[in-house]
Every structure is written in C-alpha cells, then in structure tokens.
C-alpha cells in the first residue's frame, strides 16, 4: 500500500522515468509502488522520434516549449503592428501594441531564464495570414491565444519545480486575458464561449504534441518535443 504521500511520489516517479531512468527501480522500491503503476507510467509514455530543434527534457524542456510559443506569438504581433490591417482603430492599435509588448516580455524572460539551455530563435511562416485583413489577423490572434492558454494549462503538470509552475501560472492568466479580449474584438461576449470552456467550466487544455501540431503550420523551423516529460 502506498503512503498518504503517494500521489506526490507517483508524480516524482513518473518524472524520474523521463529524466533519469536508472533511478526508477530504486525509487519505486522506496515508494512501494506496484508493478501496475510501472505499467501505468509506461502506458502514458509516448515515443516521438521526429527531428528538428530539440526542446530538451525535464523542466528545461517545458520552459523551452513555452519559449517556442512565445517566440511565435511575439513575431506575429510584431508583424501585426508593423503592417496594421485596413481600418484598424486607435483602440485596437492600443490593445494589439500592449499584447505585442507582453509577448516580447515573455519571450525575453524565457530566453534569459533558460540562458545556455535556450533553444535557438525559431523561423516563422506566416504565409497563410493576410496581415491587411482584420478578419485574418484577429482570427489568427484568437487561435494563438487560445492555443497558448491550452498549452500552459497542459504544461503545468509537466513541471517539477514549483517556482517554474508559479511563473507559468503568472503568464497563462495574461494569455487568457489576451484571448478574451481578442475574442471580444471579433464578437463581443465571446470571451469564454463554449468553443473553449466545457460544461464543467474548465478551459481548453492540450498536450505539447497537440499544440505543436497546430503551431507547426506557422513555424518554418521544426520543433522536436520528443524528450519532454509526458506527465
């Protein structure tokens, strides 16, 4: 039987398998986990051997994952502000400039925190976006912001360091504010509609693979998430 701390131990065990497999046996013995739990860990693990810029493993990998998304968002809003869409209003320029600056702040934060472990600057591919069209720009912004929220919501459990989790939490609510505002610019009142919030009142959540598949459309540089933790 597990102790009352077993959920903590299980989480650590899962994370250990992704970071340092040699520790697993000793750890499981210590934790008293059954073989079933090892199978459970195995069932949750996915192999993905795609190539590209490798995000790395553990918390560093997760932070690089966030860094990749912030790079994408910042590049998008920089373009939006440098080539504003037709008939953009002063209010919209104000909002979108603020959002651009927030995304730049996030991007630079991750770059600095990751230091030598930071992935390279990613090349974007915005050929599918019509920057002169309000509809195209706002639809893309909405997709990016909702994607960002879902990504951070899914990444929280992948982090082992509570300080990293806190920083991710500080950013995700700002992304959610962006998402709400962009949605309201498209259709006032759609800030939290049923396309993103389920019947339990829970926001959308995605795994890194799901997120990167969607983000990949806008990235020339391929991103490899195969070493990220999966739980």
């Amino acid at each position, binding site marked *: 039987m597990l102790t009352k701390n077993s959920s903590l131990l299980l989480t650590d065990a899962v994370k250990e398998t992704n970071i340092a497999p040699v520790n697993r046996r000793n750890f499981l013995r210590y934790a008293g986990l059954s073989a079933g739990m090892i199978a459970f860990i195995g069932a949750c693990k996915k192999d993905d051997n795609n190539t590209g810029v490798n995000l790395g493993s553990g918390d560093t990998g997760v932070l690089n994952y966030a860094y990749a998304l912030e790079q994408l968002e910042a590049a998008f809003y920089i373009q939006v502000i440098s080539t504003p869409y037709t008939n953009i209003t002063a209010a919209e320029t104000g909002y979108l400039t603020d959002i651009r600056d927030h995304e730049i702040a996030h991007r630079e934060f991750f770059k600095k925190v990751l230091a030598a472990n930071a992935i390279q600057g990613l090349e974007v591919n915005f050929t599918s976006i019509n920057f002169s069209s309000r509809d195209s720009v706002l639809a893309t912004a909405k997709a990016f912001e909702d994607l960002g929220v879902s990504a951070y919501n899914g990444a929280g459990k992948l982090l082992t360091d509570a300080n990293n989790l806190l920083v991710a939490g500080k950013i995700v609510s700002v992304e959610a504010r962006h998402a709400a505002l962009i949605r309201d610019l498209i259709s006032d009142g759609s800030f939290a509609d049923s396309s993103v919030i389920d019947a339990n*009142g829970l926001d959308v959540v995605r795994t890194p693979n799901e997120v990167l598949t969607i983000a990949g459309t806008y990235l020339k540089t391929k991103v490899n998430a195969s070493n990220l933790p999966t739980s």
Partner: protein
Amino acid sequence: MNFHNVINEIEKADPEVYERLDGRRTALKGFAKMAGKITLAAAPVALGGMFKKAYGQTSTAIVDVLNFALTLEYLEAEFYIKGLAAANLIPAGVARAAFQTISAHENAHVTFLRTTITTLGGTPVAKPVFDFSGGNGSGIGPFKDAFINYPLFLSVSQALEDTGVRAYKGQAGALISNNDVLTAALRIHSVEARHAAHVRKMRKEMGAPQDPWITLKDTGGIGAVVQGNYNGEENTVQAGVQITNIAPGITAAIASESFDEPLTKAEVLVLIDGFIV
C-alpha cells in the same frame, strides 16, 4: 490517454489490480458511469479517484486547497445569481449575456469542485452566508448598493475575478503532487482570467482608465476600497529576472501587465472577509 489501454497495461503487470478495484467489469462500469455523469472533462479526476480507491491514497492538503477554492466559487456564484436576479441592474443584450455566461461557469465550478472533493474522499465545505455589501453581516459595507448600482456591481465583479485569478495562482504549487487536480485548477484559473478581462473591458468602455490586463497595482478607478486586491501586481521581477527594459519599450507598466501575481490563502481570506458573515 486511452483509459482502457491503461487498465489493460496495469492488468498485464498487476493481475490483482481488479481485486483492488472490485473487479474489472465493475471498475470499467464504474468509470463509464462516472464519466457519463460528470462528463469526460472530469474523467482524469475521476480516474484519480479510482486509483485512490485501489491504492489507498489520501490527501488532506489537496482537499483543503479545493475547499478554499470552493469557498471562492460559492462567493462568485451567489454574487452573479443575485446580480442577474436584481431588477433593472444588468442591461439586456451583450452585458446580460456576458454575466449569464460568467454565472454559468461559476455554478459549474461549484459543482465540479464539490464532485472532485467527494471523489478524493473529502467533504465539501458548506456554503457560507454572504454579505455582498462587504460589511461582515451588517449589510451596510462599502458595496451595499452593488445590486442597485450597475457601475458598483461591475467594480465588485472585477475585484472578485481579478482576486480569484490571484487566489488560484497562489494554490498551484500546493497541487503539484496531483496532476489531475492541478490541471483542473489551472483550467479554472484561466477561465477566471477570461472573466476578469471581459469585465475590465466593460468598465473601460464606461470610462474606467484601465485595460483587460492589470497595470502596476492600479485599481482601474475603483479606489482604495479594493487596493489590497491589487497590491503586489506591480512586481516586475520574475524568477530573479528584471523584466523592465528586458527589451526596448518594456516599461515597468508593461512588465507588470505581462505577469499576473499570486496571493496566499491567508491574504485572500483577509480580502474576502467582509463578504463572509
């Protein structure tokens, strides 16, 4: 994750798992029933509950966090129920629809948290008696006109939502040991932030000097009565990194907007104390 595969994998390695789970059929039926009842989104938490039963996990600390969250959700839920019921308060159209959306989410959060707490083997706290005037039961606190004065209603709503975001954020670390509960809490947290952004925009359009995001520790014109709810938001240092001037144009105001700040449980309880009789 395919739950049936997970069960199959466990069965291979631990044939006794079904005895622990009262037999495979019962386990799967129980899971399907749970999933059907509380919808698939809650399934990870339900699964957590199943393993708790099998392997005897308990976690008082996590239930305590969820009961704290439940108290906040009771507060928000009842505030919007009363607001929507008040005659001539919320204008028909987009405004009313927005508060119906927000109200539905807060009600759903109450139900979800109660279900999750019960699933984890805990007991949901009872709903407190609220005094939305903020007067500790006197009925004559600073917000006594919130249900007859629409701008005041919006101000209280904004403060509740922004504070809710800070409260959930402050509890994330305490949930790090339970992936399912942590993820659910994060998913509520971002919904509260969406609510906050919308209400802030509503107030901005009525003249409040603010944006959907929080600039420094500014209350958006609400004033000293909610200053405590915003103190600390002016922080510009994250994980030891100074964000101000981290790139050209990143002022202290932008740096503060880019990161929302947490509150501890104790800080939140002080802030909402006036609402609880």
